[in-house]
């Protein structure tokens, strides 16, 4: 499944996650190579956020394993996983509304691993932040909040950064701006795993994509390996390949 | 094609209904059959039974967690006092208390229903405290030290005991019956929907506000009637006693131990509570320590109470307020999709209507 010689930073092995009676993630397996951008795509309700939440430690899986750099972290609590280098930027950003921008970012350092990310590096990366740092986080726009949420996650010096639904609720130009900053993150040795509904964006930046439909994997590989029609079929769950000549 | 049938009761329910009528008749005959000690004990049981049923209606079915129903107990008791002081028979105070409770509950609800959660709970308690303070300021009602209810001592002791017993029995039966009828009606369906998901319930047009108001009115009127009975059975009325938060503690404990969200639960809980009180009566405060601790344990770890524990394992119900879904296999002998081999009624669906939902 992975290229020869590639180290897998994160492995997920037949993971099943349930929400009461509903099975949100059903025996999903994946492997994220170190230093890559891995995108999980799929429609609403496909189980993508649940999967990410399980990797971060918020959702308890009912079956399967999660392995970080060879260590089984399935039973570990969320705070322990932060210590080991898993940092999640949750869906909806979820900044702390009664804290200022700077305070929000600083909370990310609570269980920080030693590393290169600190407040001044964050402010270098997002030059607009220092001027707004004493403002209440609730007053920022969606895109700005997303940047702060990413900053908060980075402060922990993670090995792998999980980003849930990056483009949801944001203007396209803002989304492009955030995606444009991803390469800089990768240069610092970070691995990024993101969940996206916008397939085009995901394919443009990821080196591997995996598509989920109703909790199961329908497609996995490098984005250039597939035609648009194949991705569409995997995304929407249309049966069988389109007849020859009909693919665009 | 699979046939489905929806019924409101099982055979066991009809049997239990018949048994219930017999029980009530026997209870009514008791003053002619047993000594006064037994009927006095039963008066206390009926009082707590009615209170627990009313609190369960409010909180278990209505979702309104009030710690202020003692306001209505006190108002009911003082209704009796007031009427007796003005020449009426004290027992007239019982139906009068129902009116008083309902009338006062209306403006109270306008204020209270704007609140929720902890704010709602504390506001109900503050209203009770306010009612107590206001009444204590009225000298003719005995002010702080209380007053005895005139006219009761004109009866001879045995007659008084019997009349008090029957008043308590009527109130208890009425409380249970009212809850049963309400929950079997459309209102019960609305309340169950609200308990599951209030926004969804409103969005399909359920009259949620009206349902909650009716439940609050009935519960308050019921507590007031109980307060009237308390005044009669204790022969005097003292604010610090009838407006005391202890009554709320007792009714909540009874419901918790017996099981919230069902009609049988409060009955069981009240019985256990009163029996404990009798057997441990010489240990006074310690039995309350025990019951309080028991209530805490049950609230956290045995969430359905005793009846909930039983209800999970059997479909026997004394008071059927839910719906049974019967799914019959299709005529051609094939298996209906999605249904397993057993053709028995689907208990799981029905049970989920009644159990308090963790949230």
């Amino acid at each position, binding site marked *: 499944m992975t290229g020869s010689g590639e180290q897998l930073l994160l492995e997920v092995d037949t993971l099943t996650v349930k929400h009461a009676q509903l099975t949100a993630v059903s025996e999903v397996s994946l492997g994220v190579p170190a230093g890559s951008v891995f995108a999980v795509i799929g429609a609403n309700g496909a189980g993508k956020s649940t999967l990410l939440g399980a990797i971060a430690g918020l959702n308890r899986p009912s079956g399967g394993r999660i392995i970080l750099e060879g260590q089984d972290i399935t039973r570990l609590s969320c705070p322990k996983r932060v210590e080991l280098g898993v940092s999640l930027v*949750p869906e909806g950003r979820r900044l702390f509304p009664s804290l200022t921008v700077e305070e929000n970012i600083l909370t990310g350092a609570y269980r920080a691993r030693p590393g290169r990310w600190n407040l001044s590096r964050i402010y270098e990366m997002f030059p607009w932040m220092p001027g707004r740092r004493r403002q209440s986080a*609730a007053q920022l726009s969606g895109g700005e909040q997303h940047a702060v949420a990413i900053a908060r996650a980075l402060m922990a010096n993670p090995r792998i950064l999980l980003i849930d639904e990056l483009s949801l609720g944001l203007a396209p130009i803002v989304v492009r701006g955030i995606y444009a900053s991803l390469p800089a993150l990768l240069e610092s040795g970070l691995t990024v795993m993101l969940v996206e509904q916008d397939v085009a964006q995901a394919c443009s930046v990821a080196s591997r994509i995996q598509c989920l439909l109703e909790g199961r994997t329908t497609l996995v590989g490098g984005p250039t390996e597939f035609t648009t029609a194949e991705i569409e079929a995997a995304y929407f769950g249309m049966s069988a390949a389109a007849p020859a000549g009909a693919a665009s | 094609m699979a046939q489905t049938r929806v019924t409101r009761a099982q055979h066991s329910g009809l049997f239990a209904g018949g048994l219930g009528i017999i029980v009530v008749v026997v209870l009514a005959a008791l003053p002619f059959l047993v000594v006064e000690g037994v009927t006095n004990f039963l008066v206390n049981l009926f009082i707590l039974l009615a209170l627990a049923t009313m609190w369960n209606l409010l909180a278990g079915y209505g979702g309104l967690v009030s710690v202020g129903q003692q306001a209505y107990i006190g108002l009911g008791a003082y209704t009796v006092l007031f009427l007796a002081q003005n020449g009426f028979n004290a027992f007239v105070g019982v139906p009068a208390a129902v009116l008083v409770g309902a009338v006062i509950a209306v403006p109270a609800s306008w204020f209270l229903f704007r609140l929720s*959660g902890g704010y709602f709970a504390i506001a109900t308690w503050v209203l009770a405290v306010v009612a107590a303070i206001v009444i204590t300021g009225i000298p003719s009602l005995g002010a702080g030290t209380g007053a005895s209810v005139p006219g009761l001592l004109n009866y001879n002791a045995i007659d008084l005991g019997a009349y008090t017993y029957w008043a308590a029995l009527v109130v208890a039966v009425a409380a249970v019956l009212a809850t049963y009828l309400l929950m079997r009606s459309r209102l019960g369906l609305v309340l169950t929907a609200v308990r599951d998901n209030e926004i969804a319930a409103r969005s399909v047009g359920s009259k949620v506000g009206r349902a909650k108001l009716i439940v609050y009115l009935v519960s308050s009127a019921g507590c007031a009637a109980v307060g009237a009975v308390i005044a009669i059975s204790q022969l005097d009325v003292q604010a610090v006693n009838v407006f005391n938060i202890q009554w709320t503690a007792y009714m909540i404990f009874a419901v918790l131990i017996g099981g919230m969200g069902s009609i049988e639960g409060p009955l069981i809980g009240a019985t256990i509570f009163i029996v404990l009180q009798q057997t441990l009566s010489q240990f006074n405060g310690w039995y309350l320590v025990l019951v309080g601790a028991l209530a805490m344990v049950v609230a956290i770890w045995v969430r359905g109470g005793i009846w909930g524990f039983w209800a999970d394992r059997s479909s026997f119900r004394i008071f059927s307020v839910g719906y049974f879904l019967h799914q019959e296999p299709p005529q051609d002998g094939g298996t209906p999709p999605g249904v397993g081999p057993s053709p028995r009624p689907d208990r799981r669906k029905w049970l989920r209507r009644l159990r308090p939902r963790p949230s």
Partner: protein
Amino acid sequence: MTLLNAVIQGVFLGGLLALFAAGLSLLFGVMGVLNLAHGDIAIVAGYLAVALVPALHLPALWVFLIVVGVLMVCGYLVQRLIFQPSLESGHLTPLLVTLGMSVVIENLLLEIFTANGHSISIGTFTAGSVQVNPQISLSYLSVAILGTAVLALGAIQMGLSRTKLGRIVRAVADDRDAAQLVGVNYRHIFGLAAAVAFGTVALAGLSLTMYTSISPTSGPTYLIYGFEAVVIGGLGSLWGTLAGGVVLGIAVTVGVLISSNFGALAPHLVFLAVLAIRPQGFFPRRVTT
């Protein structure tokens, strides 16, 4: 002038009520627990002092420190062992469990100490006062209680806004799941908040035991005053809680000038009015998105 004196005494009473309210505000604001046993815990602190002062042969102030310390440890344990399972059991459950706690505590105290009132005095300090002018006198105790309230609330507020731990507590209060994502063990934070809450309510109970006398059933009255102060001041602001306490205190002392019954009624009427007109209080801090 009697009105001015009443207002001044009301301010001092407000200090005492604010001490009761501070812990409630923390518990309700940080973890959403409405602790119906809050007043009773203050009374436990008072009785602990009543029992320990003659037994330990230490100056009263040392005993007070010990009592506050013991209660803080109890607070952490009660949160981890009782409040936390209640929170996980259901959102109604903490209310019901703390009601049970209240009954258990009150009846235990009744059995151990009987229903008689108890009080503590530390000599001339408790009884002494200064006559500012013919109508106004300031008792040392009242001034000390107000001072303690201001110091305690100030310290907590400062801790919350200036320290790293305070920031984390505020974060947990805002969104406990997001806090987990930055590595916070929110149960431990809840425990610390409960410890501080029990510490302040211990101070309240000790103050009450000196100011007047306590009996096993004195708790609920102060629970109500405490909650009313929190609502009037606004959840999330400890200075607001102090202001709320002062408003209630003045309502009591000024109301008493009309009649003792009205003095008991006035604070509750003020509370109900605030709840009807401005339920978020006068200085609410919590921002919700």
